[in-house]
């Protein structure tokens, strides 16, 4: 029997894992899929595709996405960074949404306009 089955939380890891841990593993899996994308497609093709619009060089940006030849430790680092970025986006998005939501009509912070 697997050693981890002795722990109820580990035995049921798909339900008991913390949101942060799940986000990190999901980000690592996304990076792994991006690496396989980089293996499958030559990233320089994007650079040559002529995807320049105004100030943006979308070809260049897409070729950054096409990671390739990354090892597991590099994937973990990249996944950690991606997870941190997504977490920051989520928190700042929630704060921005909260700031944009109008206060209740009789709330103390309501500014009379």
């Amino acid at each position: 029997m697997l050693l981890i089955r002795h722990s109820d939380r580990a035995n049921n890891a798909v339900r008991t894992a913390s949101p942060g841990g799940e986000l990190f593993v999901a980000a690592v899996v996304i990076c792994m899929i991006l690496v396989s994308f980089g293996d499958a497609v030559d990233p320089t093709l994007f650079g040559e595709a002529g995807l320049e619009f105004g100030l943006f060089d979308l070809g260049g940006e897409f070729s950054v996405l096409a990671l390739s030849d990354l090892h597991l430790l590099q994937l973990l680092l990249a996944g950690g960074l991606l997870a941190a970025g997504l977490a920051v986006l989520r928190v700042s998005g929630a704060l921005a949404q909260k700031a944009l939501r109008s206060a209740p009509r009789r709330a103390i912070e309501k500014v009379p306009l």
Partner: protein
Amino acid sequence: MQPEFLSAAFLSALFAIVLIDLVLAGDNALIIGLVARNLPKQTQRKVIFWGTFGAIAARGLMAILVVYVLDLPGFMLAGAIALVWIARKLLAPDPAAAGNHAAAVPAASFAVALRTIVVADAVMGVDNVLAIGGAATGSVLLIMLGLAISVPIIVWGSHMVIRLVDRFPSIILLGGAVLGWTAYSMIVREPLLASWFADHPATKLVAAILVFSISLAPWCTARLAERHKPLVVLLPALLVWLLAFEVAASVWQIEVRYLSADDTGEYLFQAARWLGWLPLGAAFLWLREQLALRRRQPVRG
């Protein structure tokens, strides 16, 4: 190709081996304790030492054997398919886990105890050995280092491992992801498929998504809403359908163009490729609904 000593590839493979060892570890310590519990104190110490040594030696030998077996054409693919199944098994909760021990019979003598420990470890460690054989990319040094680091942790620090995975269950999810990644890299390294992947590079991405969608399916199933759960079956099935057309075109040497056709045969072929899965998907959803309805109905008589 074997990684250079202490390079990023070497350390990554070592980390993968240790992580796989930890998440797929068997309860060796418990078995040693159960087998040795009725023996005299002096013999108990000997059984614990030689049992641990025998378990490490048996596992090392099996892992080295796996490295050489994986070099044979076809075995890398078979090993990768087995790893996908192992990752699924790791992530799926086991409701009957408690009290399901492989060896609970105390031994009467030193030789019997030693044999029981080594055989139990060899039987429990098959999945583990296959996974580390795949992650080691042909390096025996990596396997030896990985075993030297992880087996003592498992045997003497099993409580620490249980506490660690209990505190951070995400380690199990990461273990599943690393197993999926190892399976993908084994598929890509398969000598029988090397030339095919060189001719069809885009299928590498399809293979990666297929491997992850099957091996991480228990995680997705636990997180998806009830009405979205069929996606866990439909997405891999769709990828297999598209891959099958690619393989069929290679086997029968048919030139297949994407989204373009000139004659009726080509139109039919493209229609079958892009739309042929729809009736099968609908049939699967209908069958699933009927089975769910039948399960909900109370048993009569």
